[in-house]
């Protein structure tokens, strides 16, 4: 059963973004875009989340926070990097304290371009992430089955 695709809960984290992308992320929750139509909930708890939606280029202070949040999320999970900074570091990439993109710290599944990314693009990115999430779930279920079968034969 594919309930996961119908109920993706999002954890939104600002990894030293300028707040531009964050405002656009929150715009998705407003009546105009209303992402709850797709069962999407903006949760504040990594242990309840399926999708880590993350903005900004990651500086040295929030590098461990990003990794911690990612590790606290139960599998299957996907990461969406929103905005130019989250993809490459953007205009901040030359700064001494900027890691230069989310994928320098944790694996990223979907990149949403833009400075700032538009709400429509963010929703598109989430929809793309749902496909990956479903793939990961199937792989996880398959892995568990294989482990079980291997356990039976030995």
């Amino acid at each position, binding site marked *: 059963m594919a309930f*996961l695709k*119908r109920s993706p809960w999002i954890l939104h984290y600002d990894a030293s973004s300028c707040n531009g992308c964050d405002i656009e992320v929150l715009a998705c929750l407003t009546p105009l875009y*209303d992402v*709850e*139509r797709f*069962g999407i909930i903006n949760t504040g708890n990594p242990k309840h989340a399926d999708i880590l939606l993350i903005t900004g280029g990651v500086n040295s202070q929030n590098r461990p926070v990003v990794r911690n949040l990612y590790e606290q999320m*139960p*599998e*299957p999970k996907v990461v969406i990097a929103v905005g130019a900074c989250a993809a490459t570091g953007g205009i901040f990439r030359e700064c001494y304290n900027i890691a230069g993109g989310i994928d320098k710290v944790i694996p990223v599944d979907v990149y949403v371009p833009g400075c700032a990314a538009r709400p429509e693009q963010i929703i598109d990115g989430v929809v793309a992430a749902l496909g990956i999430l479903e793939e990961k779930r199937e792989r996880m279920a398959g892995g568990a089955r294989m482990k079980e079968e291997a356990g039976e034969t030995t």
Partner: protein
Amino acid sequence: MNRIMGAVIFLILAPLLGGLIAGIDRKITARMQGRVGPPILQPFYDVGKLFEKEKVVVTTAQNFYILAYLIFIALSGALFFAGGDLLLIIFAFTLAHVFLVLGAYAAHSPYSHIGAERELIQVMAYEPVIILTAVGFYMVTGSFYVVDMATTTIPVILYLPGVFLGLAAILTLKLRKSPFDISTSHHAHQEIVKGVTTEFSGSTLGQIEIAHWYENIFLLGIVYLFFAWNPVIGIIAVAVTYAAEIFVDNVTARVRWQAALKSGWLAAALGIANLAILSYMVYGGA
């Protein structure tokens, strides 16, 4: 035989009905806020998803406590629909929440602990009214058994309007709705992270959700008892009460825990005043 049937029907149908009510609730809430809202079956998708997720456990004790919470909530509801003793039902109901609090305390997380403390405050706030409800029903119908309350021909609501208003007030606490959703921060998705449910994920969180559905049906059952002399009026009253709760949820801001506690006890004072007047009328002040 009828009694066992009542319990079995509750155990099977209550999660379905509870989930459906939760879905309708979310839809109406969205419409009140000018949004389209999720599909009606969204709560079932959510719980289905939670059972698909990886099981992340902080301490093994926490899952045991949550299972006990689910079992005792289901038990109190089953006893209620079997027509059992209302006092026993209330004790089982309270015990269930003690397990929820213990589960939250089992994990060493400050967010979980704040949630647990707030849940205890909620129990303190609503418990007097729940007990007064049982006492009020006894004074009017002469029995603590739900089966007698459900089959009475006395319009209980006319004798216990104060107790009913008190119950409606604490129903906001129990349904985890604003202005009193202090322990799980059901709507404020980031405050104190997620209260009592912070450290639970996957199927354990799903169990909490199912227990909440059982609980809602049980509470709506108590609301129905006030109007049990006429089933049609009873069902309309339950629907109106729930709609009013959704409305209050959407028009009020959340209060601090002190105000929640005071409101709970104010509701209890209303119930006590009601019972005092009732006893004066029945026993003539003797």
